[in-house]
C-alpha cells in the first residue's frame, strides 16, 4: 500500500482526510513552501501542489489567475520540483503534483518521474490524461514509486469506472460535478452517487473535489467519502493577501475554520 493510501485510510478512521490544493509559485516559490508547511501543521493529510500551466482548460477563474501569477513570476516545473525536497526536510506528509500533461511531456516522462521521485513526490495527477492514455505513464511512474492518481466524474460510465479502478493507485479523485474547478455553495448529490458507484470497483480510498469550500461541505463529504479536496477557496485566500506573511496567515485561518477540532494537529511528525 502506498504512503498516500495509508495516510488517507488512517485519517478516515478519525473522521476523514483533508487534501488542500495550492498552485506552486503563487505568489512565489518561497511563500508556497511556507504555505505548504502551514497546511501540513494545520491538519492536512495529503497536499496537492498545482503545476502552473498557460492553458488550464479544466480550471475556473480562481485557479486560472493563480496559475498565471505563478507563470508571471517565471515559475517552471523544475522550480516546482524543488519544493517537495525542501518540504521533506521538515514534514513527511504525501505530496501530489497536479498538472496538465504538456509541461510533463516537454520535461520528458522519464526525466520527470526520476526528478519527482528524487524530490519526494508521492503522486501525480494529470488533468488531461484519461484512462487508455494513462496505462504506460502509470507504469513508468510506478517504477519510481509514484502513484498516478485517476480522476472519475459523474459522467464516467460503469464500464470506464471498472477500467480506471483496475489500474488506479493511491486514491481515486472523484469530481463532484460536471464543471471546472471553483467554489460553489453546495456540493451536488451527484458526488455521493458517484462515490457509491466507484466503491463497487475498488478498495482504494476515494477523495471528492471540485467546488468544496466550507466546513459543512467537508464534513458532508466525509460522511460518504474518505477525503475532501479544497482548492479554489484556499487559492482565493492567497489571492486576497497583501504580503507573503498575510498569505500564510490567511491560509491557516481559513483551514482552521474548515476542519473540526478533532482532525487538527494529527500530523505524526
Amino acid at each position, binding site marked *: 500500500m502506498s504512503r498516500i493510501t495509508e495516510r488517507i485510510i488512517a485519517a478516515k478512521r478519525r473522521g476523514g482526510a483533508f487534501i488542500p490544493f495550492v498552485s506552486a509559485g503563487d505568489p512565489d516559490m518561497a511563500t508556497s513552501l511556507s504555505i505548504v508547511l502551514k497546511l501540513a501543521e494545520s491538519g492536512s493529510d495529503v497536499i496537492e501542489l498545482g503545476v502552473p500551466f498557460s492553458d488550464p482548460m479544466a480550471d475556473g477563474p480562481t485557479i486560472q489567475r493563480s496559475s498565471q501569477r505563478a507563470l508571471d513570476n517565471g515559475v517552471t516545473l523544475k522550480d516546482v520540483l524543488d519544493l517537495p525536497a525542501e518540504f521533506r526536510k521538515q514534514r513527511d506528509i504525501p505530496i501530489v503534483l497536479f498538472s496538465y500533461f504538456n509541461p510533463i511531456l516537454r520535461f520528458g516522462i522519464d526525466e520527470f518521474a526520476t526528478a519527482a521521485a528524487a524530490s519526494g513526490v508521492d503522486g501525480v495527477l494529470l488533468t488531461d490524461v484519461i484512462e487508455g492514455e494513462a496505462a504506460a505513464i502509470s507504469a513508468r511512474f510506478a517504477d519510481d514509486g509514484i502513484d498516478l492518481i485517476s480522476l472519475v466524474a459523474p*459522467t464516467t460510465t460503469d464500464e470506464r469506472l471498472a477500467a480506471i479502478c483496475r489500474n488506479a493507485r493511491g486514491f481515486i479523485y472523484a469530481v463532484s460535478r460536471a464543471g471546472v474547478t471553483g467554489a460553489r455553495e453546495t456540493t451536488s448529490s451527484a458526488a455521493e452517487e458517484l462515490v457509491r458507484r466507484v466503491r463497487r470497483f475498488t478498495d482504494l480510498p476515494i477523495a471528492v473535489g471540485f467546488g468544496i469550500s466550507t466546513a459543512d461541505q467537508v464534513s458532508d463529504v466525509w460522511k460518504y467519502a474518505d477525503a475532501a479536496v479544497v482548492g479554489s477557496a484556499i487559492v482565493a485566500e492567497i489571492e486576497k493577501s497583501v504580503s507573503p506573511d498575510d498569505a500564510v496567515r490567511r491560509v491557516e485561518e481559513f483551514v482552521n475554520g474548515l476542519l473540526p477540532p478533532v482532525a487538527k494537529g494529527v500530523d505524526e511528525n
Partner: protein
Amino acid sequence: MNYEPNEQGYWGEYGGRFVPETLVAPLDELTSGYFAVRDDPGFHAEFQDLLQNYVGRPSPLYYAKRLSETLGGAKIYLKREDLNHTGAHKINNCIGQILLARRMGKKRIIAETGAGQHGVATATVCALFGLECVVYMGTEDMRRQELNVFRMRLLGAEVRGVDSGSCTLKDAINEALRDWVTNVDTTYYLLGSALGPHPYPLMVRDFQSVIGREARDQIIEKEGRLPDVLVACVGGGSNSIGLFHPFLNDNVRMIGVEAGGRGETLGEHAARFMAAGRVGVLQGTKSYLLQDNDGQIALTHSVSAGLDYASIGPEHAYLHDMNRVEYASANDEDALAAFSTLSETEGIIPALESSHAVAHAIKIAPEMSANDIMIVNLSGRGDKDVNTVQEEFVKRNI
C-alpha cells in the same frame, strides 16, 4: 492508403483525446452519433440539400487568368469558398455538425471563433434551426473583427469575450471547453477546425472534404486531368485538409501555408512546423505545438486572426511527417501584398487567411511552366478584413 485515424483517433502518433474525464462520455456520445450518420444516405441527402440550396454549392473553380498571366507561370485556379453563404468554407462544417446536433437532440450550441468566420457560420446555422447559440471569442479578435461580432449578434447569437492569455482563438477554445464541461448534458460543442479531441479532427475533415471532391471533379472537367499542385492556408487546418484529402492518393503536390507573422522568433508567428514547433498536447490533441522550453504554450502572432493559433490539426502533423504535404509560410507583408494583388488583378478581395495561400502561389507560380496547373483554396472573402488592412496600410505608408 485511406488516411483514416485508428479507433482512438490517432494518425500515427498524432491526435487522440487529452481531456478532463468529464468530457469522455460526451465525446463517446459524439463519436457514436457521428459514426451512425457517417454512412447514412438520409443524413447525406439532407447535408447535400443544404449545401446546394442554402450554402450555394458547388462553389466555382475559377481560372484566374489575369493573375496567372501576370505571374507568367502556372495556370492558377481558385476554389471559390469565398462565394459560399457567410463568405467562407466554415459553413460546410457547420451544416454537417448542426444536422448531427439535431439528431443528437441538443438544444444549446456553443462554438469558439478566431476571425469570426466560424462564429458567424455557427450563428447562421443556429438561426436556421432555431437553436440557442453562444460564441466565445478572444477580446483581441473581437477588436480585429468587429464587423463579424456584430454579424453574430444580428443572427441572434450571444458573443462572449474571452479576456485571458493572448485573448485570441486558443483562449476562446479553452473557454468553450470550460462551458462544455459544465453543461455537457444540454450542450453541443460545434468546434470549427480539424482540431481538438477525437472525433473532431476526423469529423470536420469529412465535412470539409466536399471542397476537394468538387475541385477534383471540376478540374478534370475543365482540364481533363488532375492539377499539379494544391495550395491552401493552414491555421487549425480545416480548409486545407478539406481540399487536400480527396487528392491524397493522387500524384498531386500539396502545400499548406502557415502564418509567418512578423518574424521567426517564437511569439512572432504561427508557423508550427518551423524550428520552434515541437510535439505536445494542447486542447485535447497531440500535435506540433508552439511552446517554450517549459511546455508553456507560446503566444502567436499573425495579421490574420484565423491563422493565429499555437497548434495544428493532428492529420496535418501526420501528413507533414510522412512528407505527403509540404508546409511553407507566408509572413504578414507577403499576405498583405497578396491581398492587394488579387484584389487588383481579379477583382476578388480575399480573406487575410486565404491571402497567405495566394502569397505562396504568387511566390511559386512564376517558377512553374504554363502547362502546370495549380489550385489555390480561396477559403474566404476579405470584406471582414478591410478595416484591418486599411490600418496595416496606414502603418506601412502604403
